[in-house]
């Protein structure tokens, strides 16, 4: 039984009634997105548990299509009158002259299984257990060095219940767990102060912190990054060979390729890739997938926010554009297959094509050989985010890098933004490592004001030349 049936006594009869109101003025399609989310957080700084928080997000989003136009209404009051009012707001897009749109009989469908391997759900865990994890990360960070002057450790867990119903007869529900443990360290040496960050989590339970990325590892990594930056020089400025570390640097693929293969930008013909299906846009070494079905990963989901079953989608194969990330609207307009990438921040937002877990496939090169092949260049170790525009110009920010001199990593360097144009950079990827890794499970992607959890992955990569924006 879903939470909407159990707590709010809403069932198929109510769903059909709201769908009929949504299509009362005509319209081709109507959809209901019910959401109930429970979020809990803990924050520790200055050696104390400073605050805890709990929040409930409840609401219904109603969408109606009339041709390619979308009407949308939402409410966080699930009384019959308010749900119908939201449905009438969405219905305003359609012409009242036409006959009511059809509503098919609802046929319940299960979501994919096995994506959320949770043994100890955060939702029902004792708060003291979670406080223990936060304290472990905090203590581990602080004890690395007396130069660590401030530590902030935080916990967040979320469970998102969704039920999606549409006029084509779809009825599917999903309960999506998420946890995140993060640690920030501030290190000081004389007048110099630096910042380090680390984190972990995903669609898992508390058991995930018992091995691998434990609180102790997360705390230590944050401290070590801050300490290393104290010794770091300014990054170089200008064009040079760039080697991207495995894992973190997946953000480059997210920005340079992923966004521009989201199908709404193709429907609108604003993406530089819109007319390049089947065309070569990068070197043979570039094969890119987006896969929402990786168990435990932060970007995964058992059903997308339009009720479509998600599937691993090939975006670029050996340098050639091979696929798009679609939502229902763009798939319909473009005549492309549904890939299950229609996502929304919450019930108040219209779903749009989004990435889930995006990665570049492993290549043939030994990671050590990649570094050895560079005489003088830049090694990007820790990346903190990026941005792209439809023209293909993109940036990503490196918080910690190294100079490469005569095939070896030498001095650590700090804070640099790297900029390029996607097709240019994809063509310049000249080596790809065998060592595919994914990021820390803390990433969030923003598009049109909507934020959704994502993850990225990549092997060690070499870009023949790219502009590095350090202070010189």
């Amino acid at each position, binding site marked *: 039984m879903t939470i909407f049936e159990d707590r709010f006594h809403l069932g198929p009869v109510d769903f059909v009634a709201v769908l009929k109101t949504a299509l009362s003025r005509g319209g081709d399609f109507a959809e209901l997105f019910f959401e109930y989310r429970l979020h809990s957080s803990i924050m520790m700084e*200055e050696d104390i548990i400073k605050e805890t*928080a709990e929040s409930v997000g409840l609401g219904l989003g109603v969408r109606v299509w009339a041709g390619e*136009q979308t009407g949308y209404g939402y409410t966080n009051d699930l009384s019959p009158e308010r749900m119908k009012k939201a449905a009438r707001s969405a219905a305003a897009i359609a012409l009242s002259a036409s006959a009511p749109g059809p509503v098919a009989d609802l046929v319940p469908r299960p979501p994919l299984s096995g994506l959320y391997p949770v043994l100890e759900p955060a939702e029902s865990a004792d708060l003291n257990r979670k406080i223990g994890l936060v304290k472990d990360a905090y203590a581990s960070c602080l004890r690395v060095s007396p130069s660590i002057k401030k530590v902030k450790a935080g916990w967040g867990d979320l469970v998102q219940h969704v039920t999606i119903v549409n006029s084509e007869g779809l009825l599917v529900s999903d309960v999506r767990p998420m946890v995140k443990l993060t640690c920030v360290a501030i290190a000081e040496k004389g007048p110099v102060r630096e910042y380090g960050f680390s984190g972990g989590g995903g669609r898992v339970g508390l058991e995930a912190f018992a091995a691998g990325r434990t609180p102790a590892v997360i705390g230590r990594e944050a401290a070590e990054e801050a300490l290393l930056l104290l010794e770091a020089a300014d990054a170089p*400025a200008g064009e040079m060979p760039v080697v991207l570390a495995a894992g973190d640097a997946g953000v480059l693929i997210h920005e340079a390729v992923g966004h521009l293969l989201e199908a709404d930008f193709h429907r609108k013909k604003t993406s530089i890739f819109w007319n390049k299906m089947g065309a070569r846009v990068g070197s043979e070494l570039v094969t890119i997938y987006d896969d929402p079905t990786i168990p435990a990963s932060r970007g995964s989901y058992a059903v997308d926010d339009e009720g479509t079953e998600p599937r691993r989608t090939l975006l670029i194969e050996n340098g050639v554009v091979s696929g798009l990330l679609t939502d229902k609207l763009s798939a319909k307009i473009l005549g492309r297959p549904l890939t299950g990438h229609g996502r929304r921040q919450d019930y108040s937002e219209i779903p749009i094509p989004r990435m889930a877990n995006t990665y570049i496939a492993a290549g043939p090169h030994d990671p050590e050989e990649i570094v050895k092949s560079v005489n003088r260049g830049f090694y990007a170790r820790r990346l903190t985010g990026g941005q792209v525009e439809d023209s293909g110009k993109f940036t990503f920010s490196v918080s910690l890098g190294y100079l490469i001199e005569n095939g070896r990593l030498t001095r650590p360097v*700090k804070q*640099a933004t790297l900029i390029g144009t996607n097709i240019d950079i994809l063509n310049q990827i000249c080596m790809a490592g065998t060592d595919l890794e994914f990021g820390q499970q803390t990433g969030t992607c923003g598009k049109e004001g909507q934020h959704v959890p994502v993850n990225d992955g990549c092997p060690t990569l070499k870009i023949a030349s790219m502009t590095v*924006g350090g202070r010189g």
Partner: protein
Amino acid sequence: MTGSHPAGDLKSLAEKFVRFGLACGADEVEIGIGDDIEFGVDVRVGEIENLVEAGTRSMGVRIIKDQKTAFAGSSDLSPETIERLIRNAVRRAELANRDACAGLPETFSSAVDPAELDLYDSEIAVLDPQTKIALATETERIALSDPRIINSHGASCDTHVGHAVLANSKGFLGEYRKTYAGLNVSLQAGETDDLVEDFWFSSKTHLAELAPPEEIARTAVARTVRQLKPRKVETQRVPVIFEPMMTGSLLGFLFGCLTGTAVYQKSTFLAERLGERIGREKITVIDDGLLPRRLGSSPFDSEGVPSRRTPVVENGVLKTFLCNTYAARKIGLATTGNADGAGVGPSNFYLQPGKSTPGEIIRSTRKGLYLIRTLGHGLNPVTGDISQGAFGLWIENGEFVYPVSEITISGNLGDLLMNIEMIGDDLTFDGSVCGPTIKVAEMQIAGRS
């Protein structure tokens, strides 16, 4: 549980939950309620793409017990849910640690009259959807009539009508209404593989002050086409002129470095600089929550502290940090009325305009970059370091000679404040953080080798 919202006025509802919190054993209780009506239309290439209309409510709760804090929030305002969250919060507070700085603000004898701030425009509240659709459609139509514009990301018209209520167990009870109207268009120009894009907008509390479609469209077109056929300049150090929107984003970064929270967390490079010179004499930065009709104004902050005008940097000297009650107690200052949720946020935070016209600033530059857009997030408040992708116009002998793209600018906010040579007279308020054109003596540009 029905999930339906209770009837009745929001002030009594807030007071009722304050009493409930005290009855559950809390020492102090704060309840905030927001009631918002949203309308939005997106038009693209002449057709409505999205039409959104909704009314929503949300509630925020702060509980203090034995100097221990717990927060809660909900968009489900049914009494069952709120009462459960309050009971949980009182219980959870026990698990936090005692913190002498925790707690509600002191009570204030004076209050700001919401009517004097004039933040509510009844015209926005009753504006019919057809008029809003027409505003967006007309803005995009004018922009697309320019043959150099090849595509549109769309035009949008959005309105908000908000009602905020706050009550606490020290007897504070306040409310105000605020409206918002925004109109924007986003465009593309150029050849298929050599696209440039930009946008323009207007956003105000009053419809009468919103820029007309013609002005927004023409500005968006001019901003887009001026970037056509860009070059990549060589790596070098040059003066950089920030146009007002770029000064605004630099001030957003500065704001983050000037909060009391960042000071006690040591996450700002300005933490130890109170009372010292941090910028040139001509730099005065003000946070003012009392400007009538401005988007950043309000009679009180999210803790019920009356809004005020706070000179933060005066003639180059750092006068105070911006605080909520907690951060103020941590660093031994007074709250500046900048509480925003559990954190600290700007009111109207702006750089006082100077005397030079933007034209004079451009003409004063022999060689330099006129910065019009940045890409990326390379701003580090702990060090003040800046490194971002940049788009702009190249200046030689006081004139624009060609657009530049695919370069980066880098520097340090601390150095930059000491190197602001000229400040423009062109301050306008289309957001809560804004500034005029400024000229910085020198920054590092990375481009061609």
